[in-house]
């Protein structure tokens, strides 16, 4: 086994996914098969290889820090599940 159900539960907590037991079972099998497949990369010696993050070489893009038009509060909140005049309503964070 490349990954256990306990590890899958741990990853689900990290990913903020409240998976039900059937989903956890299915994902344990799927992830195990996929991780076994990707293990083939270990056959390649990459000790002297530089990793590629972007295929096109690029440096940081800077721009002047100028005030520009931006969203109105109404636009920023137009898709909010629980809008509030003061911002976005969420469950209590600190008990």
């Amino acid at each position: 086994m490349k990954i256990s159900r306990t590890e899958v539960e741990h990853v689900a907590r990290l990913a903020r996914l409240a998976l039900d037991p059937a989903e956890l079972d299915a994902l344990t099998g799927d992830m195990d098969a996929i991780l076994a497949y990707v293990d083939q990369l270990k056959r390649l010696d990459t000790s002297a290889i530089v990793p590629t993050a972007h295929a096109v070489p690029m440096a940081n893009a800077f721009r002047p820090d100028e005030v520009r038009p931006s969203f109105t509060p109404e636009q920023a909140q137009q898709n909010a599940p629980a809008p509030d005049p003061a911002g976005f309503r969420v469950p209590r964070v600190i008990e």
Partner: protein
Amino acid sequence: MSLFELTLQDLRTGLDRREFSSAEATRAFLDRIAATDPQLNAFITVCAEQALAEAAAADRRLAAGDAAPLTGIPLAMKDIFNTAGVRTTCASKILADYVSPYDATAFARVKAQGAVLLGKVNMDEFAMGSSNENSAFGAVRNPWDTACVPGGSSGGSAACVAARQAPAALGTDTGGSIRQPAAHCGVVGLKPTYGRVSRFGVIAYASSLDQVGPVTIDVRDCALLLQAIAGHDPLDSTSVDTPVPDYAAALRTGLEGVRIGLPKEYFGEGLDTDVRRAVEQAVATCRDLGAEIREVSLPHTGYAVACYYLIATAEASSNLARYDSVRFGHRTAAAGNLIETYSRSRDEGFGAEVKRRIMLGTYALSSGYYDAYYLKAQKVRTLIRQDFLDAFETVDVILGPVAPTPAFRLNEKTADPLQMYLSDIFTIPVNLAGTCALSLPCGFSGSGLPIGLQLIGKPFAESDLLHVAYAFEQATEWHKRRAAI
């Protein structure tokens, strides 16, 4: 000939000669969508009323003599492009009611020219899939055979053009999501070089791989639409500030002096016999047109799918962290604390494949596994990219199949994610290398399904692809066949 059968270029000519109005053309496509979409499910949102208003505005612009290349041309957008005022779902339940306050740059550019938005087309949820079966709005069907998938993830973009519900569409390609559906639906699809087209306002899947591109009936239309969207955008720092050539100038016949490479790894075991025959026939056509054919090697091809499913899922797990139900998106009705609200909303809102990829990516980035999976994959990515750079030392364009088989049947591969992933084996390496590639029709299978030819070019050499594709298209009749729907 009905207006909905015209290419983008023919629509342009007809509009310029006042043979018909944009309103008439737009109505023809809206009628076509109404007549055929119950069978195909290519559209998530049809913008009938708004499209007719935009067409009327385009007609006024035409009358004023102020027409741009796309003025009055109806288009469809993959539902991954933010379109102000029209909902953008990304084919996900989590964004089912999302209405963006702004336009994606690629859409803003065609809109500024006066193009008419027919609607938003279906796709795999968050562009994750190869069959368009992962949509929260239902699967799309292939216009050539409605028992088959159209490919994915831009399945709606390819199906709507193949069925002439729209003369052209924009899609996105992260591992083959434009080219593979274009091949399966018998249309032309281009994945430009990473950085050629702005990704601003395109809902992110895997940011180092995603790229915007056109889906069209023929190669001339591809050049026309690419011209409209290519170029630097200050709002996307990964868009590259290099001059945009005149793509129409690349549409030349004759291939004398062009060196075409055949990667031996793309013609190995597992290639469907009909696909092999069609691609080999295409090689013979290119040789007859004067091209020099050489064998090349892309030795790390077999590692590309494994490499991709670590890098793409890692980036996806990070990008999709934003769906936390606070500022936008589905929020659970269940009571709970903040973490429970995040976790339940995400579990309710995401489909199975999206969860699978978030989980895999979270694992690949998690403490203790980062070096073994994510970093390893980034190093293998370097090897895959180097394969292409080496091959382009001796050839101008690389030619091969787009997909190992023609379109498969609905539900044929849904039970085995790995089998589904392997259908992208010839398209994924191009995204990892960051270069450009085009898919165009090159034949049909015994059962009448289209087969796609893939042309891969050097970085920012889209003109080379358009040249070879146009010469091939002019010498063949495949692009003139139409699905019977």
